[in-house]
C-alpha cells in the first residue's frame, strides 16, 4: 500500500534537508538504516551496485529489511544469505545470464524461507516514479493479463501473498480502456553509488542512470557512496550535469571502487574472474558456499581496502583498464 499523502509529507518535513556537509564513514552511514526498513538499491544487475554500503550493512547485522531494486544480481544472494532480508522486490534475480540461474536464490525461495516479489521491470520503474512524484500510483499498460499481475494482486494464479503490494486495474474515465495502477514505492532508505558528488550530496552520474534518479526522489533517506567527493564549486560550474540533488541526500561516503566486484560506468567493468569464482563457490552447496563467501569477503576484512585486497590487485587493475576504455576507438 502506498503511504497516505499526509504521512509522506510529514516524513519529508521532519528531515533536515538543508545545505550541509554530510560526509561520513560507511559505519556511520549504516546507522541510518533501521531493522525492518524498506531499502532501495541503486544501479542495475552488475552496474553501480553500492556494494561497499551493502558490505557495511551486512557487517552491522541489519535484520528484517525489505529490499527492492530494478534487477538483482549477486547482491540479492548476499541479502538472503547474510540474513539481512527475507523479502526482495525486483523484476529479475540471478547472478547474470552468463552464469545461469542463481543457486542461492533457488535455495532460499524454493524452500519458502524467503520471498521474491516479482513485478515487471516497467512496474518497478513506475512504482519508484510514483513515489518520486508524490502520487499514490501511476497508470501503465503492461503486466495486464499475466500471472505476474495475478501474483501481486490476486487473480487467475490464485490469491496473492498478502505481504505483496497490490496493483489494481481500472477503467480509464477518459477512454474506457483497461489500465493498471501500480502503487507508489517510497523506500525508507535508498543506497546509491555515483561517480562523484559534493559534500552536500549533489551528485553527477555518467552513463546509465537506471532508476536511480526516481529512487533518490522517492526515498525518505538517501545514502550516497561515491568514487570521489568534489567541491560544491565544481558542481556549480555544470549544474545541468547534477542528477541527484542535495536536498534528497542524508549521507555521503567516499569509497573508491565502491561497486566491486560489479562495475561503475566509465571507471571499471565487472571483476569477471571474481564473479566466476563466486559462481563456482555457490554451485555445489549454495548455502555453504555463500556462507564461506560472506566469511572471507564480508566478515574477515576489516576495511574496504582489505576487501579489495582479497579480490586482488590484478583483478582491480584489469577491471579498471576495461572500464575506462568504453568509448575508445
Amino acid at each position, binding site marked *: 500500500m502506498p503511504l497516505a499523502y499526509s504521512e509522506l509529507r510529514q516524513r519529508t518535513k521532519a528531515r533536515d534537508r538543508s545545505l550541509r556537509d554530510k560526509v561520513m564513514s560507511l559505519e556511520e552511514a549504516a546507522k541510518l538504516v533501521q531493522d525492518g526498513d524498506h531499502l532501495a538499491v541503486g544501479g542495475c544487475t552488475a552496474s553501480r551496485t553500492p556494494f561497499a554500503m551493502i558490505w557495511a550493512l551486512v557487517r552491522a547485522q541489519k535484520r528484517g529489511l525489505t529490499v527492492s531494486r530494478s534487477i538483482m544480481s549477486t547482491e540479492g544472494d548476499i541479502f538472503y544469505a547474510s540474513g539481512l532480508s527475507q523479502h526482495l522486490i525486483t523484476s529479475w534475480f540471478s547472478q*547474470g*545470464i552468463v552464469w545461469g540461474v542463481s543457486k542461492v536464490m533457488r535455495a532460499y525461495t524454493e524452500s519458502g524461507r524467503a520471498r521474491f516479489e516479482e*513485478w515487471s521491470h*516497467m512496474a518497478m520503474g513506475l512504482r519508484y516514479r510514483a513515489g518520486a512524484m508524490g502520487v499514490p500510483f501511476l497508470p501503465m499498460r503492461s503486466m495486464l493479463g499475466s500471472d*505476474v499481475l495475478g501474483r501481486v494482486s490476486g487473480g487467475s494464479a490464485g490469491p496473492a501473498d498478502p505481504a505483496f503490494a497490490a496493483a489494481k486495474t481500472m477503467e480509464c474515465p477518459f477512454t474506457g480502456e483497461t*489500465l493498471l495502477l501500480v502503487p507508489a514505492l517510497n523506500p525508507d532508505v535508498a543506497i546509491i553509488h555515483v561517480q562523484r558528488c559534493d559534500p552536500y550530496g549533489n551528485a553527477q552520474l555518467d552513463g546509465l542512470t537506471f532508476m536511480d534518479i526516481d529512487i533518490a526522489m522517492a526515498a525518505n533517506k538517501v545514502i550516497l557512496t561515491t568514487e570521489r567527493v568534489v567541491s560544491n564549486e565544481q558542481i556549480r560550474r555544470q549544474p545541468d550535469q547534477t542528477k541527484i540533488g542535495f536536498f534528497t541526500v542524508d549521507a555521503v561516503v567516499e569509497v573508491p571502487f565502491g561497486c566491486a566486484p560489479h562495475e561503475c560506468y566509465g571507471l571499471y567493468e565487472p571483476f569477471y574472474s571474481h564473479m566466476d569464482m563466486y559462481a563456482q563457490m555457490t554451485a555445489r552447496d549454495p548455502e555453504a558456499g555463500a556462507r564461506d563467501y560472506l566469511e572471507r569477503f564480508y566478515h574477515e576484512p576489516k576495511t574496504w581496502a582489505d576487501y579489495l585486497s582479497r579480490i586482488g590487485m590484478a583483478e582491480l587493475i584489469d577491471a579498471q583498464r576495461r572500464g575506462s576504455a*568504453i568509448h575508445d576507438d
Partner: protein
Amino acid sequence: MTTDSALDAPARIQAPDALPAPDAPPAYTASELLAVMSARLLKEGQTVFAGVGIPLLAAILAQKTRAPGLTILFEGGVIGPFVEAGKLPPSTNEQRCTRRANMLVSITEVLLMLQRGYVDVGFMGGAQIDRFGNLNSSFIGDPAHPKIRLPGTGGGNDIASLADMIVAMKHEKRRFVEKVDFITSPGFLDGGDTRAQAGLPAGGMFRVVTDLGIMGFDAVTKAMTVLALHPGVTAQAIKANTGFDLPVPADAPVTEPPTELELSILRELDPQRLYTA
C-alpha cells in the same frame, strides 16, 4: 533483463538430433542457426528491443549485413549502440551495451518507449512457451511450490505486452507446452481476442524462431503454426518436439541455410562462444 537461457545454467543450447549437418557445407551449431534465422527477420530502419544472448547476436548480425540502420534498444536504457566484436555484454545493463550509442536514458524511459509505440520489434528468448505464445520465465511447476524458481520477467513482460514479438528458443517438448506453468510474458493469452480484452490491444507474438523452424500465429485463433522448416527438418520431427498440436502445412517452405558470411560474423562477435556453443 530478458532471459535467453533461463532453464539451464549456464544454458548451452545443443545441436538438436534432427539436424543432419554432415553434407551441408557450412557446419553450424543450433544456436548459430537460431541467430541467423532470427537476424533475417529484422528489417532496415527498424527499432528492435533486444535481450542479451541470441537476440543481441541476431540484431548485431542484421546490423552488419542487410540492416546497417537497424536501431537496437537495450533495457538498461540504451538506444542505438554498436556492440564491439569480442566484447559482448553480460547483460543489457552494463557499459559495454552503451558503446557508440545514440542516446542513453533511464530504464523507465526506455520501457516507456515501448508503451508510446516507438519500438517495432521486441526480441527475446524464452524458457517455456505455449500454443498461444505465452512465455514463462518465472516458475517451473506450481508457482506456490515451484520445482524451479527462474529469474523472472525483467523487461520481458513489458516487451511482450507492448511490441510485436520475435522469440528465439530451443525447440524441445518440455519447452513447447500445452499451457505454461506461469504466464510471465503474455502472448495471446487464451487465443482469439482475449489479449485485447485483458487491456493489451497492441503488439503480440509475431514469430517464434527455433532450431527446427519458424512459427507464426493464426490470424483468428492466435494458435501457433509452422511457417517454414529449417534444412533437413521434417514435419514429423517438429511435431515430435512440440508438446501441443502444432500444424505444419504440407507445402511449408524450407529456409536457406546460414551462409559463410553470416557464420563468420557471428564467430567474430562471440569468439569465446558464450552464446553460440
